[in-house]
């Protein structure tokens, strides 16, 4: 953490994601860096998906929260390195499961082109007898699964 950015981190760490309101942006690893130049704070965020419609809402939230403590930030998007589901914190993964979303697998080299290779656990009954229904779930970052034991459908956060 760069010196003089503690206040900004402090206020941004509790901001929640508009599409996954039980997770903070910090849990998701979306806020990458806060730097200071002469006049401004520069906040770098890594979009989970390039076309994620939540991004503009996130930018507005960051700006309005920082404005409260007298900072008008420059917000920059970063695609390199691309956002990875490995950046989701342990706590974030736990919260996801509690809210019925199966968290992503850790990314390993061999799973890059094929992120759904691994077994997926049902967040309702913990069974591994599950099957993929669709590559895309309710948002671009999730795919749709169903449990063959408890029969419940559920979202699985994609491994990217």
């Amino acid at each position, binding site marked *: 953490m760069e010196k003089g950015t503690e206040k900004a981190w402090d206020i941004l760490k509790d901001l929640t994601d508009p599409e996954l309101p039980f997770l903070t942006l910090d849990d998701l690893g979306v806020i990458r860096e806060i730097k200071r130049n002469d006049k401004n704070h520069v906040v770098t965020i890594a979009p989970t998906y390039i076309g994620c419609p939540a991004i503009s809402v996130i930018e507005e939230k960051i700006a309005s929260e920082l404005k409260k403590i007298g900072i008008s930030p420059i917000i920059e998007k970063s695609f390199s390195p691309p956002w990875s589901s490995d950046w989701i914190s342990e706590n974030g993964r736990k919260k996801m499961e509690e809210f019925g979303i199966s968290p992503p697998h850790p990314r390993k080299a061999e799973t890059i082109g094929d992120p759904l290779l691994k077994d997926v656990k049902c967040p309702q009954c913990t069974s591994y007898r599950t099957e993929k229904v669709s*590559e895309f779930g309710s948002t671009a970052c999730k795919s749709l699964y169903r449990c063959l034991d408890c029969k419940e459908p559920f979202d699985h956060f994609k491994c990217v």
Partner: protein
Amino acid sequence: MKSNTADMVFEGLLRIADDNLILGHRTSEWCGHAPTLEEDLALPNIALDLIGHAQTLYCLACEINSRYKNEDQLAFLRLEHEYKNLLLVEQENGDFGNTVLRLFCFSTFMKYFWERVKVNCCFKKLKEFSEKAFLETSYHSRYASQWVVTLGDGTDESNLKMSNAISNLEPFLGELFNNDDFTEMCSQNNFLPEPTSIFDSWKNEVEAILQKGNLNFPDIILKKRGGRKGEHSEAFGYLLSDLQYMQRAYPNSSW
């Protein structure tokens, strides 16, 4: 950036952005009409990705050319001949099979395109963007390939529909791999890869998937072209009138 370099980067960004915007718009037409609920989620999600790619690229283009003040101006307020997208992406969707086959052909091309930009591109912001774009286009290609195999290897009727889709799209595939003076300049300046350099990787993958679906790989020769010069087919005018309606009727409107 020198002015002739800026012109090159601007035009190059427009070509890619326009392809993504127009295919994104076509794909979004499926919203509420897909054959199953799952596909009704999948196709608009892909449309969102494609339009997101276009938006980011238009923003980069606006940074370079001050004539356009924001991405909406580029997306919604240009005239027909100012769009530089391929004829392939502007064609009507046809049936679901035709839609997924076109998506497969295009996203497989873009996957290899971004893979090359990742390795070599003099424009740093595009090089960074390509890392993320590569992952997303790979996902689209894989999604679409599964449908191509499922439908091709399905019933006699679904196989026939996929064969028809191949005949239908075949005249437009050559333009994907067409080098022109501009693409040669881009490649000489280490900006973008030459389209022909992508052909072999693309063919290997597309041919293997078609074979799995008991479908024949078509002859790819240059037949219909013009999109890169702003010469479009009839379908494009109807598409634009729909795409541009809000900004034309309510200029500068925003959310």
